[in-house]
């Protein structure tokens, strides 16, 4: 699993930090820190965090090869 947060969209609602505290954290009250390649055991929580983001700033790619160049990506390109 790989994830990316669009920090231009992020408004600091912090919903992801509640739902997946091992992956997302707040530095101070607003700045968001996150683990871009979290442990697979966190997948359920990361899904919940991504769905809960009020501005939908979290992009999750699932699977062990996520983020690598896949056939589908090459087809689209």
């Amino acid at each position: 699993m790989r994830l990316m947060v669009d920090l231009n969209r992020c408004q600091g609602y912090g919903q992801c930090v509640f739902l997946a505290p091992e992956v997302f954290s707040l530095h101070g009250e607003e700045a968001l820190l996150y683990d871009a390649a979290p442990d697979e055991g966190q997948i359920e929580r990361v899904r919940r965090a991504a769905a809960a983001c009020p501005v939908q700033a979290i992009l999750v790619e699932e699977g062990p090869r996520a983020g690598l160049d896949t056939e589908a990506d090459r087809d689209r390109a």
Partner: protein
Amino acid sequence: MTTETLLRRITDYGNRADPYPLYEELRATPVARQEDGTRLVGTYREILHLLHDPRISSDLRNRRHRERAAPDDEDDQGLPPAFLKLDPPAHDRMRRLFMRHFGPPHSPRRVSALGEELPGIITGLVDGLAGRNRIDVVDDFAYPFPVTVICRLLGVPREDEPRFHVWADAVVASIDPGPEENPGERRRAGQQAKAEMGLYMSGLMADRRGSPRDDMLSGLVNDDIADSGVEPVELVTNSVLLFVAGHETTVNLIANGMLTLLRNPEVLADLRAAPAAMPQAVEELLRFEPPVHMLTQRTPLTDVEIAGVVIPEGVPLSLVLASGNRDPQRFTDPDRFDPWRPDNQHLGFGGGVHGCFGAPLARLEAQLALTELIRRLDSPRLAADPPEYRRNPVLRGPRRLLVDFDGMRP
């Protein structure tokens, strides 16, 4: 009919099962002035603007006296208002103090850790229904579950439920904006209930002063608030707010959720087969059938122009979130329940500085509860549709949700 009577028609109990045609009518007028002077706003874009506009107050003391049509606008027996009814900076001080014990950055694991306990609570409740072929989703599950959770979170003894159930009912009835059944009497009863709850909550806090347990009341009462500008009595009023809000809203999210899934059997089957999609399904429920239909306590601090219309200073302003959630200018095919809807920035939890405090907990509760209910009930179907609704048009949801089923899966 004229748009001036919309609020009256929305609050009319006869329209509780399906207020959505009224909301469609509302969206045709960006700011709909009502007979009593209240302005209703029901379009997505305008609601979103007003939620984030610092000139829009949540403090009812800013209403012009003759237009104080609010249902809950008198002093609460000398108690200070909770942060729901305050503006920044007082609101921020208090909300931040409570957030210290609920979420990040100070308590980032509280909700997540509580989440670990939820499946056990759910299983216990569902197991208790074995042997039956009909349940009332509200009384048998959607009410007792969030009550148990909020009790656990705050540190309120679950066995006191018979006492606080009565108080919570009175508080909820007091925020019903409907004109029927003597609103003055309801208001007094609501204030009385809040005062009694405050006393009860103070007792629980006193027990925890100096001997903390693993709950929010312990954290609050042992926190150093000397420099925070927050008075100890405010810890009590806000704890009462969280306690009431923590179950009176989630009950609707779960009950509305079951109702909506049973009305959409293909979606229910998909979610049973792929429970990983439940988080998105709950977001769609928050759009499609939100637990809170409108925010009735806003007041402009100055004349505010929106969509070419001036909302005058001091008038009652209501933001109809459930209408904004069905605005076709924002959502494609808005009357369709579609958990796979992209870009679902619903207004189900409000927004801006007063955005729902308990949202992350409510989400978890609804996701886990609905996943387990549809997994375990065999061939569930509605015994009555529409169900009997609660009276309240603001905190809208079924009073009873009778569901028949063939048996309980292990």
